[in-house]
């Protein structure tokens, strides 16, 4: 569509690059359609808290209230854990919800944009990608709440605070890759969407949202080893270390594992998405 080449040669319509090139061609597509993405992201961000008095304040209130609940719950069950426990939960909730919303949103990105898909063609990878960016922006807005908390606890802001946006990006990127694998399938049957809503909810407890990496390590080597298989451990823990203001104590393995997991998911997700998206759209 953005092709302004003025040749009048007959070309097959809707030809795509081969699946192998998809992970790279998708990045190119995103770059080409920046203006469209900007408008779609703007629409989603503005739409999330529409018709509410508090508006964007909800992006801060939502994780704050949720962590308050967990804070009291945990205090009742396990006694007073850590001075900063409340903050750890808050960071965990923000990072996890970036991931969760991106996974579920990406999975339903084709079926929920049915109207547009049936009327015009543009590379459909734009739907999940713009959704991911909207989630990242909303999460970064939630992160603003961290600054007053820094003051309240008397923690010196350091350059390691940059870990937090990095973690938000990483969790969004992890989410989109996983979601894109299942998005075409969700056009055929909505069960995928419902199943993943459950998986995200369950994953909340299996990831260090209510607990921390350090707590799990204290339980012995077994839980430590089990923990290293969950790619979401790294972004959440990284953000917490960023708040605490020290370089991360995560083993190199965890960082490499998380990074390669996300990249492999993106490659695999792009390949599946680009290959099946056009056939799947018929089911909409």
């Amino acid at each position, binding site marked *: 569509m953005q092709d302004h080449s003025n040749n009048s040669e*007959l070309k097959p319509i*809707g030809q795509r690059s081969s699946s192998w090139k998809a992970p790279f061609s998708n990045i190119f597509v995103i770059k080409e359609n920046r203006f469209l993405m900007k408008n779609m992201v703007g629409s989603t961000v503005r739409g999330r808290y529409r018709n509410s008095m508090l508006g964007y304040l909800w992006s801060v209130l939502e994780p704050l209230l949720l962590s308050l609940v967990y804070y009291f719950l945990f205090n009742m069950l396990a006694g007073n854990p850590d001075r900063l426990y409340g903050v750890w939960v808050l960071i965990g909730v923000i990072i996890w919800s970036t991931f969760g919303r991106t996974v579920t949103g990406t999975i339903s990105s084709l079926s929920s944009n049915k109207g547009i898909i049936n009327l015009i063609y543009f590379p459909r990878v734009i739907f999940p990608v713009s959704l991911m960016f909207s989630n990242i922006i909303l999460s970064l807005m939630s992160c603003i709440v961290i600054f007053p908390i820094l003051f309240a606890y008397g923690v010196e802001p350091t350059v390691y605070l940059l870990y937090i946006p990095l973690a938000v990006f990483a969790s969004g990127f992890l989410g989109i890759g996983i979601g894109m694998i299942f998005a075409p399938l969700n056009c*055929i049957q909505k069960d995928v969407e419902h199943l993943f809503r459950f998986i995200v909810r369950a994953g909340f407890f299996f990831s260090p949202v209510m607990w921390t990496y350090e707590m799990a390590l204290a339980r012995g080597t077994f839980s430590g080893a089990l923990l290293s298989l969950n790619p979401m451990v790294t972004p959440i823990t990284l953000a917490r270390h960023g708040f605490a203001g020290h370089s991360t104590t995560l083993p190199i393995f965890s960082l490499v594992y998380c990074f390669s997991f996300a990249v492999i998911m993106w490659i695999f997700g792009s390949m599946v998405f680009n290959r099946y998206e056009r056939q799947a759209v018929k089911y909409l």
Partner: protein
Amino acid sequence: MSETVIKLNNISLDYPKHKHILSLLLNKIKEKHQTFSALRDINLEIKKGEIIGIIGNNGCGKSTLLRIIAGIIPPNEGECLVAGKISLLAGLGTGFSNHQTGRENAMLYGSILGYSESQMTKIMPLIIEFSGLQEFIEEPLRTYSAGMKARLGLAVASAIEPEILLIDEVLGVGDPNFKEKSTNRIMEMVNDAGTVVIVSHSFGMLSNVCDRIVLMEKGKIYSVGDPKEVIKQYYQLDKW
């Protein structure tokens, strides 16, 4: 002059009958495909500068054919060759969101239709003028009436200058005044665009503007030719 701009070679399209993952798997195993065919062996060549009308009963595959030409759905068999920039005019105001202002919606819709940012800022005053919304453009869309939304949709969509224009039943929206304005605008677009394919039920308009008319029946092309002839055939077909 008379070069081909759209070429459909043996296009066939099947729609899946069952919406079940299980039956999909069963089909794979049994190698039996439970599908219904929406289009069968469509062959059509459209030359540059032609205005083609497509008519037929509901569900005969007219809109599906346009969607194949626009690249929205891939055919199961055959190929569709196209030369030039294509634009499908259907369902005006797709992707409009109620919580955004008219201007934001126009920007979004414009970018969906493939405008660049610079093009969009350039045509924005024209869009506001044509839609007649004036200061309402800064109000959220939920305050708009249905007619105002349609006007905004058409104003954005009609600002395109495609080489090939596909129109799917978008004529006649809004109040009588605007209806005339919109019909005129679409006719202007039809005249400006190199090649036009129109799906419509308004035979009067079609026989006036079209060079050829395609009559479709149950997913196949029944006949192609002179507008008056083909429209006559359509009424004979109906008597069956």
